């Protein structure tokens, strides 16, 4: 798909004027500009955050992201909690895809303390992570269209997601917060009949993908709205630390699962989709391909998963689990991209410092502020959702 050519585009390269630092000179009193706050209770923003937009007509000349509406001080709270207590706490850092939090925390703790996770547990972890990705993508892929008021795909997607959540409930005992992957292993075996039900759901999701391809991806109006809009220039990728689908949409084939294989990902056959057009449509396509790939990966996992009884390594008593001094950065590929946790241990049973590196941190603040400039106000939320920003992960 070529870039959409509008019949007439005003030349806005010199408007508004910029000062020597490249900052736009915006004089609100001149009445040429409007200040528009979107959020926190705005249906379009991806969560409880707000965008401070300076508009000239329908065009954004300056954008600022304001976060902190969901700040709970996790990194501080976790300093007061033992490693095992950190585990339920860490999960809340990103609501939409909590499993990545569980995994990176567990992986970091295990790496520092040298715990070997049993093989079955590794497979189960991978299953949980991929199910979480599937669950998120079912929400997000049609979600881009629903910011453009095509909510139908979202409704179907939500229903598909419900089935995955049902499977989660069956496997982990939780619907949203699964609290399944914990330091040392996982918290439950595959229930009886799980594979069969999961495969049925995956078949259903195949049908769903076909339907949203018809409804969304071949929809002319959707293409008109998204092709050539929200361009993420390739040179921004390193400059802004872009990871995951946005980077893959801009021609950078970066996927932690491939680059730094963790768990059993090197035993799985998959190839992350990459495209170069780097607009909203491309990112939507990348996500859709991710969805197809995730379904495939889950099928492979279900096929290969061993059935050992051992699901958790023998660890010291978790009530006073102490971890050797050191620092570690553990990463995983979440649906939004590289998701990592940096833990510093001072040898006590409480972590000295926990820092979460979520993709949204750079995507939603620095990158979004950059991308929104000269965007049309109607596209703001499509751009935001296409970056899949998640506010709780920014402010933690």
């Amino acid at each position, binding site marked *: 798909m070529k870039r959409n050519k*509008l019949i007439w585009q005003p030349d806005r390269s010199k408007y508004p004027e910029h000062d020597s630092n490249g900052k736009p000179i915006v004089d609100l009193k001149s009445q040429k500009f409007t200040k528009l706050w979107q959020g926190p209770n705005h*249906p379009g923003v991806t969560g409880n955050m707000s965008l401070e937009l300076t508009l000239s007509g329908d065009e954004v000349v300056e954008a600022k992201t304001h976060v902190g509406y969901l700040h709970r001080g996790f990194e501080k709270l976790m300093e007061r909690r033992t490693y095992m207590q950190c585990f339920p706490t860490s999960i809340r850092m990103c609501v939409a895809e909590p499993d990545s939090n569980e995994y990176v925390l567990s992986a970091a703790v295990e790496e520092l303390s040298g715990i070997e996770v049993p093989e079955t547990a590794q497979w189960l972890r991978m299953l949980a992570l991929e199910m979480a990705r599937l669950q998120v993508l079912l929400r997000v892929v049609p979600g881009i269209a629903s*910011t453009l008021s095509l909510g139908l795909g979202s*409704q179907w997607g939500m229903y598909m997601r419900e089935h995955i959540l049902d499977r989660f409930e069956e496997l982990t005992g939780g619907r949203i917060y699964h609290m399944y992957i914990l330091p040392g292993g996982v918290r439950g075996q595959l229930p009886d009949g799980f594979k069969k039900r999961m495969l049925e759901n995956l078949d259903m999701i195949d049908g769903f993908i076909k339907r949203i391809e018809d409804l969304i991806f071949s929809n002319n109006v959707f293409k008109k709205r998204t092709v050539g809009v929200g361009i993420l220039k390739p040179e921004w990728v390193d400059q802004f630390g872009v990871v995951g689908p946005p980077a893959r949409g801009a021609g950078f084939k970066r996927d932690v699962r491939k680059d730094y294989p963790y768990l059993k990902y090197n035993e799985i056959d998959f190839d992350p989709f990459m495209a170069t057009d780097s607009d909203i449509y491309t990112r939507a396509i990348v996500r859709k391909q991710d969805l197809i790939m995730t379904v495939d990966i889950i099928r492979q996992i279900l096929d290969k998963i061993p059935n050992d009884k051992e699901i958790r390594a023998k660890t010291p008593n978790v009530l006073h689990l102490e971890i050797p001094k050191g620092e570690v950065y553990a990463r995983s590929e979440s649906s939004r991209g590289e998701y990592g946790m940096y833990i510093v241990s001072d040898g006590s049973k409480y972590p000295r410092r926990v820092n979460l590196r979520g993709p949204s941190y750079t995507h939603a603040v620095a990158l979004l502020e950059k991308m929104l400039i000269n965007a049309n*106000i109607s596209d703001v939320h499509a751009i935001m959702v296409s970056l899949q920003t998640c506010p709780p992960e920014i402010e933690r």
Partner: protein
Amino acid sequence: MNDIIIKLLWTLLGLFIVLNWGMLMGASMRKIVARVAHRRGIPIYQPWLDLIKLYAKRTSISHGVMFYLGPVFRLGGGVGIFLFLPLIYGSEYWSNFSWAGDLVLILYFQFFGMLGMALGAGEGGHPNSVIGITRGLSQFTTVEIPLTLAVISLALQYNTLSITEIVAAQQGGVQNWTLFTNPVATVAGMLSLLGALRHAPFNLVKAPNEVPIGPPTEYHSAFLGVLRTNGAVLHVVEAALFMNLFFGGATNWAEFIIKTFLIYFWSVFVGVVHPRFRIEQSVVWFLKIPLAIGVLAVILYI
């Protein structure tokens, strides 16, 4: 004198029926849309409850006189169209105050409500209202042009500007409907209807994900009740106008109900499966396709 009072009473009764039909139609549309999403949707009586609730709000704040007048103007626009629109062809009672030039008046009233809303929403002071109303006005202007062209084509075709006469000319069988006698104008009209009824892809006026929810952002309580009342009436009369212009009007209430439902459904049918255009895209679209068709319709009859 007596006549006019009786006429007025019939008109009021007509308004009551149209209002309720509008709400029922709106609810059924929402139920149908819900069906597409595999939901069951709202109870069919939900709009009445919403309306009662809105009027029963205990507090309501105002942003000034124009803020009050906005919904009133809007209602005036809706009721205005209703007043001059013959509902049932051939019925003395249900033809309201239809007269020779009513078509022009109706086109004017369509704008009247919008302008009133603009004033009121502007007074609300919320930037979302302002952005919404700007979009609404620009889109509506471009929507009116193909419609006007279609109407001109019709006027040329039937040589009249009275809706009643246009309907009269279409009587005597389906083949006499404008749909078949002047399909080009019908297409132009039906495309502009998409814009007039503001479903996707032309629903950017109220776009909840961008400018929640456009002009009525600050409206609430009874103000919103008035707007909703007007909405119900307006949807029916818009559909009825197109019914009269292109689909042979209605000779009884059953026909009226079926035809208005289907005409309204047309915009829902398109809207459910499309995202919305940006404002400039929608303006450009209207200035391209329907306008061209409209011009063609006029040229064919010159």
